[in-house]
């Protein structure tokens, strides 16, 4: 009965995406955290969330954006929930974009990912902009460099998630 109630192909697809997310988080926390150029590190998670939305649709993008945002907020130790809400919106929005406005090709993905990276940088610098008298210039420089250094990893996110989304999950398992 449970077998009939579950959509196994969706469950399998979800497990594959969860595996991609896990790899992205490990990559972010290990390799990318060690790449420091002019004191700034790249981030890959916004691009991965956009990729989930691109190839999985709005709902999948929203769900995995929510999970990614929660984990990202935990790792930042900032005590905020900004990324939780932001990544959900990014994931859902990127799914909607491909449904109504763009194709699923690399150029469109690059544009949407860049916007997501800029939005992420803005939300991360917003507490300093709004609640402290920190000078704007170093904040903007850090946000710009973070977006710039993250750009090469857009391709990794695109091809990685696209490869996973093309795996056939509709075959029945035979024991």
């Amino acid at each position: 009965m449970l077998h009939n109630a579950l959509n196994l192909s969706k469950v399998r697809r979800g497990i594959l995406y969860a595996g991609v997310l896990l790899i992205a988080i490990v990559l972010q926390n290990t390799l990318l955290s060690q790449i420091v150029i002019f004191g700034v590190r790249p981030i890959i998670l916004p691009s991965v969330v956009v990729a989930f939305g691109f190839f999985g649709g709005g709902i999948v993008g929203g769900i995995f954006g929510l999970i990614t945002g929660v984990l990202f907020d935990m790792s930042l130790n900032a005590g905020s929930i900004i990324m939780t809400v932001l990544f959900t919106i990014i994931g859902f929005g990127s799914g909607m974009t491909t449904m109504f406005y763009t194709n699923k090709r690399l150029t469109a993905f690059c544009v949407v990912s860049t916007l997501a990276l800029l939005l992420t940088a803005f939300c991360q610098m917003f507490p300093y902009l709004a609640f402290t008298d920190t000078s704007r210039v170093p904040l903007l420089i850090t946000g710009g460099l973070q977006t710039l250094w993250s750009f090469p990893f857009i391709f990794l996110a695109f091809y990685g998630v696209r490869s996973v989304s093309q795996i056939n999950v509709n075959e029945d398992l035979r024991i």
Partner: protein
Amino acid sequence: MQTFEYAYEIGREVNLNRVIQYLKKKGTGVLIVAVIVAVIFGVSITQGNGKAGALENASVSLAIPSKKSSSGFVGWLQGIYSYMFQFDTLKAENEELKIKLAESQTELRKAKSAIEENKRLRDLFDLSDRHEDLTFEDAMIIDRGNSNWNDTYTIDKGQESDIRVGDCVVDSQYNLVGQVIELGLGWATVRSVCDADMHVGALVGENGNAAMIIGDFALMQDGNTKLTYLTDETQVLEGDAILTSGKGGTFPRNLVIGEITDVRTEDGGQMKYAIVTPSASLDSLTQVFVVKDFDLVE
């Protein structure tokens, strides 16, 4: 042309209607779920008082082995790089350190003699000892933080070692490294002394005038911090040592924070502030000591 424009307008209108319908059908639900999860997550953060919840404990505990291995791998690569390209520099630094060690040993012998004389005089005048007992917990740094917006470290000791949120962290030379801001099982997050959210009461120079160390984002990027709230009487010079004041009971007194490397004036032109370079080698630290308890006995 008019037909095309008409068809384009119809298509746009249909497309917009579909978008609105999709948003109403799916977007509302996703947004509600996101807000609920965010509120629950936010409440757990505020109620935890710095202690990590079960989910965060699990996620960090799972990440610790990979963080340790990547830190170890990077350290190994750095060691090879140092051996190949910095051998001469290291050799010269070694010779310099040997000379400093010899000088320190001479100073130590003099200090021992002074301590014995101090004890004799205290006994003579029946004065009680004044000392500050520090209880330490040693810990290793397993991760240096992966955010561009704060400066934190993860250490491999946590709640199980009786560490509390707010405990200060020092290195082996009693230089201030930072403060514990989050606790988990087997790990803790330490906010660096350079972090933009750091606040420490400080004493300046030989006169011990009071001031405050308040983090600054721009200076944090350079590995420095800001000394501010200087009174008019306070004389600040480059090279002056900055120590913790011990006011408020959060940090023990007389821990070395750093030294002044520059004195500047605020944008308004009236207040001056100083740039402080921490004495702890924050980039190369591997072992730190959490001050779990300290008593000031007069």
